[in-house]
């Protein structure tokens, strides 16, 4: 395959022909091809946020490009939400540079926010108003005429599959429906950038999948998505590019696939032992020829090129796990490696 036509994550059309990439590329070329649109929407240099003596965001640098889905991945307290609030122009940076849509968020916050959509971590819907009224109130903040809001409300409620609930009060709606309404509301001003702070936290798996599906459609329509999450599968599903954040800094940066390739083996063998022999088994497996082993509270992970071969080798060495699982390396493993190591240090 011609390597210049390959791209790891996105499909780009050329004259009706879809080019699909499957192969690895050198990191630099890979990066260029990942973002054909090179307009920088958000640019940060040495971005820092302190609260009293506590440094929530510690001098991070990044560029976000138009049309991409960018994820901030990290545990609670890693500085994700603080970063999002700074990008949302509701939290002035303590130091460093930040420019959003080419403007200064401190001076032009109002004008920038007019072009942003924000899905906050906790819903800020007025639960005593109806679904439709929530969109009306919000649209009016943006100075939109009622008629425009009415038309957009119909389209947006259709989009998030809430059209039949338009006249209902928000209060009795389930968490998943409220979340979808929040997403619809955040789109009422046709934002160029949609900021989502943990968009599916607290939702049941089915509701999460609906939200992902809608976000993916937005991405396809060219909306730039910036999201935080501590769900690895969410990041893998939605993000073209992501950073792993820990203690206010970036621990790693790249596409999900890139990160997995860089920080994880192709396959992972998960072994579960009787709790009484788990420690002994972990000891014994320390010398096993794996790229890395990780002993968690309830299971042992072996990072290997070939999971089935490794399992056979484990059995041959006289260890018999209660259960075993061979799977692909995921962002979860990347995260464990990056932050787990750090915590041990």
């Amino acid at each position: 395959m011609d390597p210049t036509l390959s791209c790891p994550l996105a499909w780009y059309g050329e004259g009706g022909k879809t080019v699909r990439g499957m192969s690895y590329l050198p990191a630099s070329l890979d990066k260029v091809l990942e973002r054909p649109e090179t307009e920088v929407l958000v640019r940060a240099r040495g971005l820092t946020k302190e609260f009293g003596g506590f440094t929530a965001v510690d001098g991070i640098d990044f560029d976000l490009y138009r049309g991409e889905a960018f994820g901030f991945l990290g545990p609670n307290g890693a500085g994700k939400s603080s970063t999002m609030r700074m990008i949302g122009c509701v939290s002035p940076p303590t130091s460093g540079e930040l420019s959003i849509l080419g403007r200064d968020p401190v001076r032009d916050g109002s004008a920038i926010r007019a072009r942003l959509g924000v899905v906050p971590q906790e819903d800020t819907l007025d639960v005593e108003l109806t679904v439709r009224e929530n969109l009306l109130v919000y649209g009016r903040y943006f100075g939109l005429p009622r008629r425009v809001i009415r038309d957009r409300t119909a389209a947006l409620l259709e989009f998030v599959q809430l059209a039949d609930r338009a006249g209902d009060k928000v209060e009795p709606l389930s968490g998943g429906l409220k979340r979808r309404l929040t997403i619809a509301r955040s789109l009422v001003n046709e934002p160029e950038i949609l900021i989502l702070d943990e968009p599916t936290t607290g939702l049941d798996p089915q509701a999460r999948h609906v939200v992902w599906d809608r976000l993916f459609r937005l991405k396809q329509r060219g909306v730039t998505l910036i999201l935080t999450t501590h769900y690895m599968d969410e990041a893998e599903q939605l993000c073209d590019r992501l950073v792993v954040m820990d203690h206010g800094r970036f621990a790693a940066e790249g596409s999900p696939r890139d990160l997995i390739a860089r920080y994880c083996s192709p396959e992972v063998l998960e072994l579960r032992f009787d709790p009484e022999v788990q420690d002994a088994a972990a000891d014994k497996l320390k010398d096993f020829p794996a790229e890395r082993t990780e002993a968690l509270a309830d299971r042992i992970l072996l990072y290997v090129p070939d999971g089935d071969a490794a399992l056979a080798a484990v059995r041959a060495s006289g260890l018999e796990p209660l259960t075993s699982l061979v799977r692909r390396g995921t962002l979860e493993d990347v995260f464990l490696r990056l932050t787990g190591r750090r915590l041990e240090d």
Partner: protein
Amino acid sequence: MAALSRGDYPPGPPRLPPGGLPPGDPPALGGLRSPQTPLTVRAFRCWLTVYRRIWRSSIWSSVLGPVCYLGALGFGLGTLIDRHSPASLGGVSYLAFVAPAILASGAMNTATAEASFPVFGSIKWNRIYIGAQASPLRPADIFRGHLMFMLMRLAMNCAFVVLVMWAFGAVESAWVVLAWPAAVLTGLAFAAPVAAWAVTVKVETSFAYMFRFAVMPLMLFSGTFFPLSQLPAGLRALAYATPLWHGVALCRAFSLGTAAQDPAGMLGHAAYLAVLAAAGIWAGARTYRRRLYV
């Protein structure tokens, strides 16, 4: 290679240029957007939408309060007091004496009620401020928009009380039409500083203290139910310094028609209240900013 298939990444067609959402959007013609609507007014309109849901019940309580007070104090207690026709009332009936004070203290009550829990709740409960903050509205717009709504509620409630006063025959002069803006000003002198403070409040029990140790004593000792001349000199000086006394004095002078006898005094009262309101408006823009832009 095989281990890292891209099968888990959802496939999709080529990206469309931005701006294609949602389907069926009207084109953004010039004039469709109305950026000329001031941000403060946009914040105010939100409160109108919210108020539309509760206006009936709120109007009932606005009318019922003054009717009860005027009935109990003006007629009940008033007949008892008028029997002795005390000189300190200045030769008017107790009903005429107490009615403008009920107007002014009612304005204080409306103001402190509207500027306390609703402001606190807009951060902690229904989070209206937090939602509004993500829009072009700035903290100062959110503050002024909410204050504008409080002003509207004050204007409504005070107008009702003036009408009730008039219906009860508690009005001595046509100057009472000026008692209405005087009462609204009194309310604003409370609403602006209280809202500026309420946005910084972390626990709601603070409001219980405010009502118990500030609003209640002011209502009792500001020349409302009895003339200040009945108080010992030290307490009297303290009462003169409080905002409600100025509001009561202003409303009473208009309701009794005695304002023209002391125009300088009237200006003094109005200036005191205006300074307090202005200080609150100035402070609110700052406290809101500090609270919302963390």
